[in-house]
């Protein structure tokens, strides 16, 4: 069992969490002005970095949505940031 840090609840089992995607994957604005290429990139293209990654997660039991820094090599969860407390102000939340 791996523990993930919920910014509100503290350390909880990974099974209580749901992956929300890479942080910073912003939905293209502009409705009809959005090209199919931009839309396809939003839906399908991912950086999928090796090593340190910044991701959006949801803690299913309390409903907290947050950003977590995690390493995709050793799977260590480094730290988490509550979006409600400014964790997304750097533009990394989507």
């Amino acid at each position, binding site marked *: *069992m791996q523990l993930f840090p*919920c910014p*509100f*609840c*503290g*350390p*909880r*089992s990974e*099974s*209580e969490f749901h992956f929300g995607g890479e942080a910073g994957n912003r939905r293209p604005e502009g409705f009809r002005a959005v090209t199919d290429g931009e839309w396809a990139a939003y839906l399908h293209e991912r950086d999928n970095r090796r090593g340190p990654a910044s991701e959006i997660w949801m803690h*299913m*039991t*309390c*409903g*907290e949505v947050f950003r977590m820094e995690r390493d995709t090599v050793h799977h260590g969860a480094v730290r988490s940031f*509550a979006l*409600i407390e400014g964790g997304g102000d750097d533009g990394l939340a989507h």
Partner: protein
Amino acid sequence: MLDNSARWRPEPDWENARLEGRTVAVRAVTGLAQRLVSGDLDRFLARHGLGCDVGALGLASGGRYAVRVARDRLLVVGLPASECADGWHADGYAVTTMGSALRVLDARGEGVRDLLARATTVDPDDPGPCAALRFFGLTCTVYFHGDAQTLRIHVERGLAASLWEWLECQPLLSGGAGGG
């Protein structure tokens, strides 16, 4: 023709449902007023004199208390609608009656810590401020009520029978079921 009628057992008779083990006993608690409060929780707690909210495995006492289930959400027990109406309140919080949505079980005895170890992954020495956690894989609200040997579990009504069946299967509670 597919017949699913025998696939599930009828729900227990919750008024009389009992599970008795050597070190722990479980029963359903009925008739509790349960309200969900979202928004400015500090103002709500102050207005209704509820003191501090209870977190995971925290100790609640009496018939009227508040349990934290999210950053901005409380499950309040024992607050009647006559005292606080459903809907939005000008103090900055919303109240919803939840009495029919959640089934409440009490597990009592010196074996409750063993039951917790079977049902959850939470660290009993560092459970955190939020009482919403996975119990038998279900999102439940879990805390102690009255003393450290009485564990109270709020579970979604539709999943309560499933939780009850799981409890029946536990070695801790082997030795007979009543009311099922």
